[in-house]
């Protein structure tokens, strides 16, 4: 027995010596290419006018209008490509004014936009409040303010800004702004009818239509009409295949209606975007597909990299991943609660309710129960979770 045990220990130590150096903080292996023509990285193509503007800004750094144009271009790139490096670039372009309490109004708007994109909602809201006081007729400022206020459940402020857009922008924009507010107040049916009617009548710019169609789809989903929701999102994606929000929502709908294979297919090839990767990983995991293992590994790597640099990346997505793939309901609840403290959209409410149900922790869902009671929201999915939670 002694001999056997000793042999076992020796074997364990040998195995440990082999494994451990690889496990403990290894740097990635290096290589040297042999072919000078081999492409190492793809980078943004250089736009001559942008290069000239940057040079001019370098020579005269106080020229805020140049900085604003350059930053706006980078934010637009972020919107199209969902690549967060462009946000960092935009912020760096505005560095000279970034820490000012009262920067120029154009900078205020861009600063609020960047803050909102990295979930610094209180800061974004402060900037936007200031901006609408300075420029009460700025439609974009009101719209952004309405979006941030809706996310942080300040519905009074959101309504104010939506009403401002009613007189400053088109009826479709105003209706789309107000749609989530009406829906959360329990009037999803009315909001749906109004918005559908407006969209049918007016054409509108494709970006506006896409955004309105997505809002319409969310209303339909709330009412339990998943077919209509998927149809609207199909049109939105036809208008803009790179619409990350619409694609995510459609994938979620497909998974909710039992078509995970469809969801996986429509996200394939887009996994560089984290919110797409997590959904595809969940879908493939449910399907027990061959791609499940590398996708899950990639997602874990992304989460680890974000944690390493101190970002709480996509708390919502991280909670969903913990719930659906890691099968760690307690961790999912913790993440969902942390997420709820940052943003309070319907998706966040559904997530916290679902996680609390899975963990058998009714207490954890108390904020959502309170929110649902206060707002009077009626959502087929959320109601189902809450009903089961309450009867436990």
């Amino acid at each position: 027995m002694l001999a056997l045990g000793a042999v076992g220990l020796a074997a364990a130590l040998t195995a440990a010596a082999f494994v451990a150096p690889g496990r403990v903080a290894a740097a990635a292996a290096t290589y040297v290419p042999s072919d000078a023509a081999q492409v190492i990285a793809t980078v943004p193509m250089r736009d001559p006018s942008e290069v000239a503007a940057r040079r001019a800004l370098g020579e005269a750094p106080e020229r805020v209008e140049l900085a604003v144009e350059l930053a706006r271009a980078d934010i637009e790139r972020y919107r199209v490509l969902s690549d967060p490096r462009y946000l960092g670039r935009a912020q760096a372009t505005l560095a000279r004014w970034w820490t000012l309490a009262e920067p120029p109004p154009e900078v205020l708007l861009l600063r609020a936009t960047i803050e909102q994109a990295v979930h610094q909602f209180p800061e974004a809201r402060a900037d936007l409040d200031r901006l609408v006081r300075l420029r009460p007729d700025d439609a974009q400022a009101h719209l952004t303010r309405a979006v941030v206020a809706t996310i942080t459940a300040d519905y009074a402020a959101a309504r104010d800004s939506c009403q401002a857009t009613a007189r400053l922008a088109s009826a479709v924009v105003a209706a789309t702004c107000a749609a989530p507010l009406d829906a959360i107040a329990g009037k999803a049916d009315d909001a749906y009818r109004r918005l559908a009617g407006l969209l049918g009548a007016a054409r509108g710019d494709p970006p506006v239509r896409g955004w309105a169609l997505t809002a319409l789809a969310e209303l339909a989903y709330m009412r339990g009409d998943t077919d209509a929701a998927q149809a609207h999102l199909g049109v939105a994606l036809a208008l803009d295949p790179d619409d990350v929000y619409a694609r995510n929502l459609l994938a979620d709908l497909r998974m909710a209606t039992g078509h995970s294979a469809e969801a996986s297919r429509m996200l394939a090839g887009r996994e560089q975007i984290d919110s797409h990767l997590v959904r595809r990983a969940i879908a493939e995991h449910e399907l027990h597909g061959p791609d499940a293992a590398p996708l899950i590994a990639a997602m874990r790597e992304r989460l680890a990299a974000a944690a390493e640099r101190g970002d709480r990346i996509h708390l919502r997505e991280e909670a969903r991943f913990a719930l659906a793939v890691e099968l760690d309901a307690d961790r999912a609840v913790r993440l969902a609660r942390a997420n709820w403290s940052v943003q309070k959209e319907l998706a966040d409410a559904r997530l916290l309710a679902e996680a609390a149900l899975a963990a058998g922790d009714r207490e954890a869902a108390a904020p959502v129960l309170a929110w649902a009671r206060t707002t009077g929201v009626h959502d087929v999915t959320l109601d189902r979770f809450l009903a089961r939670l309450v009867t436990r």
Partner: protein
Amino acid sequence: MTDPTSPATPRAMPDPMNAPTRRPTTYPINRPAHCPMNGRIARSTICVKLPTTAARALTVAVFAICGLAASPAWAHKPSDAHLRLEADGSMLVGRLDIAVRDLDGALGIDGDGNGEVTWGELSAAAPRIADYAQHRLALAADGAPCAVQLGSAALAELSDGAYWALPVSARCTHEPRSIEIAYSLLFDIDSMHRGLAHVAGQTVILRDARPVRIALGDATSSGSFVKEGVWHIWMGIDHILFLMCLILPAVFQRRTQRWSAADSLRDVCKEVFEIVTAFTLAHSITLVISAVGLVSLPSRAVETAIALSVVAAALNNLLRTIDARWAVAFALGLLHGFGFSSVLIDLGLPSRELIGALLGFNLGVELGQAAIVCALLPVLFWIRRTLAYQALLWAGSGAVAIIATLWSFQRFAA
């Protein structure tokens, strides 16, 4: 009319606190990690991990089989650079990995502006890159500047693409007790860039050009691993009770169908030695394989199983099911090793002298164990014929069985 802002797609949220992330090295009493009365530690699910290089090879093979569509393209993530440093006497050695994409943003590597950086363009830019990095990285040892030298670079592939891997070496005036890093790459073109300094088993986030000091001595030394081992077993009531249940009957042995007090201390010692050695070997094996991550079990299952093992040992005393208690010690001792390893992982395993740390911790556990056994065994032998011993054996085992059953429920339900 301008475009409406699309609803917030969740994005990275920078950490508002400027605190470096560190592994905790506090004493066990401050940690919920292995308090037997407490609930669970959040840990990973059951898996068997392959060594890193093998795992990478496997992943690549899977990608090739599934086709290009399955392999995630380079991730869209915020900008990071990695600086790895180790002290080697009075030298600092390591590597600085900078994303090629970021270098293009800073220096304009893409000569023909076609949106692709080739190896030729990159090699041609090597001197400029070295110059760029040299002027933006300063190292010091306890405040005294070190002369930084950059070697000839290669490439490394990370999740978001190719990185320029620059070997870094710095000659310092003495063997450092702490390192200061002043890092200012890329912040002027990307405010969300982060330098990640991997030093002494910690990762420190560099978010601006202010110098950051990292103490090297904070890494747990071999000697203190021994102390941690001793401390941990003394704090581990469940481990001690398990062992006690097994050795308690040693002074009261079965002989010719009747139980009676043992005559020879030497026989008793031999039996106890067998039991303790079996327990030691078993938990050493699982401690080692679990601490390096070869096998990784959910903590709730481990803690519950350890509590149940204490119940089993106590019941065995009452029901006399298995006389060869060394076998019980070995079989159930395997579980206890998993419990120890979570502590060891929290302490942070050093990359150098890893085996030393493992053996040191294990040695500490054995010493602590031996101290308890050597203190109690003579007492037990002395009282073996008394009523007090009978009470201890029967009522004590019964009480332990009940307590450990309660623990099992607590840990399972936690």
